[in-house]
């Protein structure tokens, strides 16, 4: 008899319940152990609903507000790339494939997916002299780090690019910034392989690399990553249904024309920043990694302030001395090494920036694309 005086309606005793719980615990432990041993999460990456049930994303998954942007920041490289349109089948023969690598300005922060650099290039349907159509793919990802860019360049090579445009800015170059990107921290094996392959002077024992403990490698420890993978797949429905992957607010604060008088840059005082403090070796590694695929570095546009203290600083990011020194160094190294290099630092008018000194509006995008098409994409015309 139970609480309610019923006859047994479910067969069971405390002994049965005990055995049931023990079996459940054992199964739970076995599954967690298997998960720990097999680490199947990277294997899930290629299992993607994108490019099968839903169109591939125009840019890598990144989202700060899942409910408004229908997007999620997921740090599993394979899952990220397999949700991208670049993973949709083989490269067509008549395609001249261009990869765009860089930070949030390449990804298109505060821009809808059809107004980013890659979308705007594609809109023009540029044709090379051999008849191939220029098709740009956005492999930019928010956060400033050359290591992160190198990681995506490395992964992007599997998609047979004909050209790589690597957008850079000073903020991504300091050595101490290289491991600040969560994508870098969460993919230590891939990053360490690259560091070793190119003999890059960054400690592989760096504490910022996230090396999961045994417990963190179980299903319980990885439940967040698993859930994020499932969410990314589900969000394919919203991407297909709405074409929205980013929440663009109607209003935001524009970069200020008035600047502080602070002359420090990333801990460097005026005149202190040397070439060895910056990650030029990472750029060289990119060239080496790309092999026969040409890589062109583009010094991306920055907001140039025109108010108080603007004679000392270009913007919130850069004191003039640091940025000028960087441009000189980059131009010199590029010339010495024979790198393809295009300096677009001032091509975007100040009123075409959105919320920061490196994010520009569709008008800014048009200005950049115009110069890229003139200087790089259509040199043979």
């Amino acid at each position: 008899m139970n609480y309610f005086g019923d006859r047994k309606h479910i067969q069971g005793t405390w002994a049965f319940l005990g055995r049931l719980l023990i079996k459940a615990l054992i199964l739970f432990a076995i599954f967690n152990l298997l998960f720990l041993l097999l680490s199947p999460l990277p294997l899930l990456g290629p299992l993607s609903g994108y490019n099968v049930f839903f169109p591939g994303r125009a840019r890598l998954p990144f989202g700060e507000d899942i409910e408004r942007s229908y997007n999620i920041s997921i740090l599993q490289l394979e899952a990220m790339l397999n949700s991208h349109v670049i993973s949709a089948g083989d490269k067509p023969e008549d395609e001249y494939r261009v990869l765009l690598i860089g930070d949030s300005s390449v990804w298109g922060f505060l821009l809808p997916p059809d107004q980013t650099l890659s979308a705007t290039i594609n809109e023009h349907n540029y044709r090379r002299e051999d008849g191939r159509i220029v098709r740009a793919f956005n492999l930019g990802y928010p956060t400033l780090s050359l290591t992160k860019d190198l990681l995506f360049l490395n992964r992007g090579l599997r998609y047979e690019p004909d050209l790589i445009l690597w957008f850079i800015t000073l903020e991504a170059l300091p050595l101490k910034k290289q491991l600040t990107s969560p994508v870098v921290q969460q993919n230590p094996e891939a990053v360490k392989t690259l560091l070793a392959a190119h003999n890059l002077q960054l400690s592989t024992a760096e504490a910022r690399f996230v090396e999961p403990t045994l417990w963190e490698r179980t299903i319980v420890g990885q439940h967040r990553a698993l859930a994020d993978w499932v969410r990314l797949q589900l969000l394919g429905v919203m991407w297909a249904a709405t074409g929205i992957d980013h929440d663009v607010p109607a209003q935001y604060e524009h970069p200020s024309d008035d600047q502080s008088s602070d002359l420090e840059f990333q801990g460097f005082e005026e005149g202190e920043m040397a070439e060895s403090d910056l990650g030029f070796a990472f750029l060289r590694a990119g060239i080496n990694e790309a092999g026969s695929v040409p890589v062109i570095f583009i010094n991306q546009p920055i907001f140039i302030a025109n108010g108080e203290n603007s004679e000392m600083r270009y913007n919130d990011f850069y004191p003039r001395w640091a940025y000028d020194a960087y441009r000189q160094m980059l131009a010199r190294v590029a010339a010495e090494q024979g790198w393809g290099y295009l300096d677009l630092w001032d091509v975007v008018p100040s009123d075409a920036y959105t919320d920061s000194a490196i994010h520009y509006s569709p008008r800014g995008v048009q200005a950049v694309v115009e110069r890229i098409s003139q200087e790089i994409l259509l040199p043979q015309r």
Partner: protein
Amino acid sequence: MDLIQILIFITISVLIGFLARGRWRSWAILGISSLALFWLQPASAIRHLDFWFPTLAMFLTALTWIAVRPRGQAISREDLYTFGGMTAIPILISLLRNLDRAFLITATRPPQPVGVLFAALLAGVILVILVRASKQNLLLTRLAVLLILGLFIVLKSDSLGQNLSRGLRSWTQQPAELASALDLSWLGFSYIAFRLLHTLRDAQTGKLPELSLRAFAGYVLFFPALTAGPIDRVERFQKDLGQAGRLSAEEAIAGGTRIVVGVFKKFVLADGLALIALNNSNAAQVQSSAWLWVITYAFSLRLYFDFSGYTDVAIGMAQIAGVRLPENFDRPYTRLNITAFWNSWHITLAQWFRTYFFNPLTRALRRGRIRPPAPVVIFVTQVSTMVLIGLWHGIAWNFLLWGLWHGVGLFIHNRWVNFQRANPDFLPRPLQKARAMNILSGLLTFHFVTLGWIWFVIRDVEQAWATFARLFGG
């Protein structure tokens, strides 16, 4: 309730099931339920409202109990203890205000104990006056019904809610221009109100059994059913509460299974579907009818898994604690007609409205001086019942239209059944018995319900109408 809260409540339920028997189980349930009322109440933008709402719920419970007591019955010592306990809980919670945040049971820091003591004193005086005046129970029950309905209307109406919020903000010296009806999110009030109204109506008709305050408050505030029902009946609840048995293995397995199923439905299926379910903002963003259908289906399924998942958890926890709550869902989306759907969707709410609105109104119309024809009676009763159920979700045009949608649907189905009875050969017999006919009926019912959710989810009627048009290629 989140997963941590569910785990804590399961543990408490198991402890109640094992350790507390008979009267002690009843005491334990009341104590835990009172604390849960404060713990589950979300924070409000209005200062201390997350403390005062649960306190008010306890006051309303005590007040209603006084109103439903048999005339002239003396207050027992046990009832006095219960009064004391119910008064002590808010005071003790307010005493925690100076402790570290980790020790707070409320979402924000509770008010000064002096203020709470004053409020307790005031509440005590009111209740004593009401006990003394309880010879006029009929008037008291009517006043209590009006008070609860009044609160209900204010909380469910955006404009009235905003006005109340403005008043409360002025009182607490907060910016009144930020007032919003969302400030007045009172956890579980809808279900508490239904339970209180049920006892008040039954007291008026003499059907309510004699209840101690302990049993009554335990019923109204029962912690597993606080957030999403179901709406039990007090006489049934009281019967379970009085059982002397302790938790059996069968109950533990059945309750545990129910909780696991509920957690899976809510936190895996419903929360997953929530990412792709129709809502106010995505309805206008979807670019094709096909995808609009997909997200509309997703909403329909999400709502079911969310609500029935919570119900499963509530029923499972209650079963472990020794109370068998009524079922609220019975595979509603597999039903073959809209009447059957409403017999299997939010069953306890539908039964509540049937008992306290539909049946009395039907009787009144049939026995009144002017006796309209049966179809008119059916139309009026079904449509008005469903409109009221709609307005229970919020006093807004979209909920009214949702109620109308279902009311008219039920009426049409009723007429169709009537027509079929009168013309049994209207549809060829083989067709009536064909499996395909059942599948077609099921699909038709599911789509009728699913399309109805558009009124429910999209607050703006014009946008809801536009969504309908787009679903059909407009």
